[in-house]
């Protein structure tokens, strides 16, 4: 019910969004997906019979206790791992078919150390069509301008020619966002991209992220530990249980956009955070009780 109302509430057509054939088709659909790691006998169930729908243009935040399979969901959607059981459907097709352009950013910025920041950011253009075929021609022209433009937007003007080790963690994470966005992905997968940053840098990047999302309206899946972050950025928040993960709560975030940091201290916002927190404590509590009895 919630899932079906979310897209209509937040979906003015963004300039980068291609028109949809049928709006009823969700951008991402996981049905009865299970993931098991390791060999039989010594296996860990990371995800059990999970169902999840993400609609076009939605900003879904996925929270839960650590080790609950949040990142597993993201890696499934990104096509980095295959489900043990069930199907993952992207834009109406199975993940392997690669129908959608995906941008990904992990907690570790993973810049390639032998490339400059600018070259790192242009990497998706070197790989993904239709940019790939023009890469030779445009890498010193339009593509470079595009990279510089993005860098300026995240406050990294003048750092294009630097190498990754010359930048701080926060700067690398900004560059990481640029790389996830440069090929104008319709799906953005963010795995705790702000997790390793100090609070002020993090809040600044939330604002930048919100601005970019409002401008381009990609479909976003954000995995995070930070409940304020989830409530600040998300149009909808899903809470997962402890391993093997299942989605135990799924609710829209009602606050108006653009949201400000000041809003995160208002009673409504704090109440939402507290509700999420108690859900996660509950999910964790079950796990700890079974692991070490009092």
């Amino acid at each position, binding site marked *: 019910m919630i899932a079906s109302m979310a897209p209509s509430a937040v979906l003015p057509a963004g300039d980068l969004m291609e028109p949809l054939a049928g709006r009823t088709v969700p951008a991402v659909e996981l049905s009865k997906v299970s993931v098991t790691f390791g060999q039989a006998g010594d296996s860990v169930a990371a995800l059990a019979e999970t169902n999840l729908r993400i609609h076009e243009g939605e900003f879904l935040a996925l929270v839960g206790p650590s080790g609950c399979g949040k990142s597993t969901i993201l890696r499934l959607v990104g096509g980095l791992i295959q489900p043990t059981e069930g199907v993952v459907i992207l834009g109406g097709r199975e993940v392997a078919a690669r129908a959608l352009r995906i941008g990904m950013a992990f907690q570790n910025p993973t810049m390639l*150390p*032998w490339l400059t920041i600018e070259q790192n950011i242009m990497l998706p253009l070197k*790989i993904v069509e239709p940019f790939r075929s023009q890469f030779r021609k445009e890498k010193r022209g339009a593509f470079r301008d595009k990279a510089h433009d993005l860098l300026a937007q995240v406050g990294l003007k003048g750092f294009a020619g630097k190498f990754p080790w010359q930048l701080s963690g926060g700067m690398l994470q900004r560059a990481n966002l640029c790389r996830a966005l440069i*090929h104008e992905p319709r799906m953005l*997968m963010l795995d705790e991209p702000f997790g390793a940053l100090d609070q002020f840098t993090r809040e600044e990047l939330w604002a930048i992220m919100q601005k970019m999302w409002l401008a381009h309206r990609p479909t976003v899946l954000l995995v995070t530990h930070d409940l304020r972050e989830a409530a600040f950025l998300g149009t909808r928040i899903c809470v997962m249980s402890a391993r093997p993960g299942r989605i135990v709560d799924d609710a829209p975030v009602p606050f108006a956009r653009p949201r400000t940091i000041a809003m995160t201290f208002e009673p409504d916002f704090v109440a939402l955070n507290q509700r999420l927190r108690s859900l996660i404590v509950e999910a964790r509590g079950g796990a700890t009780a079974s692991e070490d009895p009092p």
Partner: protein
Amino acid sequence: MRKIFNRQRARSFGLIVLFFVGWEVACLVSGMSDLILPRPSQVFTTMFQRMPILWPHILQTLMTTMIGFALGVALGVVLGAVIGVSRTAYETAYPLLIGFSSIPKVAVVPIFVLWFGSGTVPAVLTALSICFFPIVVNIATGLATTEPELEDVLKALGASKLDILWNVGLPRTMPFFFASLKVAVTYAFVGTVLSETVASNRGIGNVMMTASSNFNVPMVFAGLFILAGMGVALYVVFSLIESRVTGWANRKNDFAAA
């Protein structure tokens, strides 16, 4: 930074000079016969006086080494890439490689001579067989230890295996590759000279053998000095190329003085 670097270089140079001066003085003081240990000044004099005769042999040894080295690099890169791309191949092929590399290469020269006669061919093959191993191991290790996170960046974009190898695997392996080139080029020299001393009528190795059977000891040492000089020169060349291509792996420190 720059200053320290120059001081370091001066120290290295000073040590080399000190070594030769010490040698010269020790020989003079002890009255050592030049049939046993000639003085460096005699060696250098011999070297310059006989240069017209030595020159073709120098070229022969250099050419043989470079051909053997080039073939060794080609073979090493291909083999290393094949082995490094897949974990299974890496683990399967490793024991065989270790076995092959632990054969003393002197023992292989007679076989090459048996197959190809004496001369340039066995020398090239010996150089090849002795220098390709460090390259295989380094390329394979570089590829096999590529961080999965770096590969994920491209996988998430839908990149093919070849894209990943080209954009992540190979660049990431470059520092390993160049480190192995510096070692391999000196190994190639060893291989060439080894084969030349056993079965050839040309090359520095042969010059040294002939000179030693004539008790022309200064000439033997001249050959040794020439080999050392060529080895150092090639090492420097590859160090310079390395610091140009893989400066990212060395970061702040200026490249090490060769």
